[in-house]
């Protein structure tokens, strides 16, 4: 009897364990919001450690003692590690933003991931090597390596990903607009076949809408082209990014205009 009771208790405990373990797995799902919080935490930590680095650097340059050098080494190591973590978590946040973007195709997403993932790996490895530095000069050299990587690769990946996210946002809305257009065209065909309403004027509106959507698409392509151009250039990346985002903004305005035309068509259908 005692054994039976024990078995029942064990089975119940096992079931409860399974239920709670399932919940904990679900709670640990890593999405964009989580990644963004992670990045924010690392960035604020970096800012604090950077202040400490500047302070210890100033002390070292003033006193040049062994103690101040030791303190400067510790502060520089902590700051450089935090800098690598900030870049890594920022890249992860970008990756998840791209992943959750419904406007980008799988191949477009894979293309972005193919650029983000090696960067993440680079900063992970860079961070691992930092602790082996023996002097302040070594830290300087390690930092310069990261600087080169950032300037010629990472920064491009940052802005390229951001432009892709923006393009994905408008592309998704255009897709939704095209669905509405398709439904509206079917309805107009139905009205035409019923022959109880003159809808000939509406065809002209559709020509305009198609033109607007084509222009919207062109502006998105132009934004991507700007980013390709920026990677070959040594000029400031922010300027290129702003130009690309401006192009996406124009794409968005064309979308809004096409929606206005669609509303006008609906108004015409509803009026005698």
């Amino acid at each position, binding site marked *: 009897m005692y054994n039976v009771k024990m078995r029942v208790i064990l089975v119940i405990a096992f079931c409860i364990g399974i239920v709670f373990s399932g919940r904990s797995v679900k709670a640990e799902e890593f999405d964009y919001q989580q990644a*963004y919080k992670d990045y924010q935490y690392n960035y604020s930590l970096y800012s604090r450690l*950077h202040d400490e680095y500047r302070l210890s650097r100033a002390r*070292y340059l003033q006193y040049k003692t062994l103690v101040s050098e030791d303190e400067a080494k510790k502060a520089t190591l902590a700051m450089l590690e935090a*800098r690598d973590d900030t870049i890594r978590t920022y890249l992860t946040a*970008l990756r998840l933003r791209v992943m959750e973007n419904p406007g980008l195709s799988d191949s477009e997403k894979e293309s972005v991931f193919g650029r983000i993932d090696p960067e993440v790996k680079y900063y992970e490895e860079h961070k691992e090597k930092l602790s082996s530095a023996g002097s302040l*000069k070594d830290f300087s050299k390690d930092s310069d390596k990261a600087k080169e990587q950032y300037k010629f690769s990472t920064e491009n990946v940052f802005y390229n990903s951001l432009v892709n996210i923006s393009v994905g946002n408008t592309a998704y809305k255009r897709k939704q607009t095209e669905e509405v257009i398709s439904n509206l065209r079917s309805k107009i065909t139905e009205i035409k076949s019923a022959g*109880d309403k003159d809808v000939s004027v509406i065809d002209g509106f559709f020509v305009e809408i198609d033109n607007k959507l084509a222009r919207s698409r062109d502006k998105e392509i132009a934004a991507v082209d700007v980013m390709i151009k920026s990677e070959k250039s040594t000029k400031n990346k922010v300027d290129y990014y702003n130009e690309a985002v401006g192009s996406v903004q124009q794409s968005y305005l064309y979308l809004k205009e096409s*929606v206005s035309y669609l509303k006008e068509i609906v108004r015409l259908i509803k009026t005698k």
Partner: protein
Amino acid sequence: MNGNNINQQVTENNNPVVNQTFKTKVIYVFQPVINKLKSVWLKIPERLRKVLCIVSIVFAVLLFLMIILSIVLKSRGKVPVEVKPTPVVSFEPPPSGEVITNPSRYATDPGVLKIEEDLRNLEKELDSLQVNEVNLLPPRLDFDINFDK
């Protein structure tokens, strides 16, 4: 001095006379009723009379307590007051935001209304769309790490 005494006597004697007449009048009016009630009361068996006395005393005590309780509640302001909201008259515009004065037979068509609803939602989403990710701009990082003056 004598005059004062006379006045006092007059005033002292006046009131009892008035009271007496009022009392006699009251007795005159209620005496038959009292007599009748007395006779009825005496006719009731003594045990029942006792029971009636007890019941009436209990009833009086309860009534007294209820009066006290209502006074206390009123003074504390705990008497619940039913609050009725002021009726609000709202005039909602038509969903499309425009009034069609000469509607066609498609003005109430479910397919057309569905498209109109989809368009309205799409327009709302477009209005709230953030083209560039302002919250996700790259961090400002210091790459000039050196220990030269």
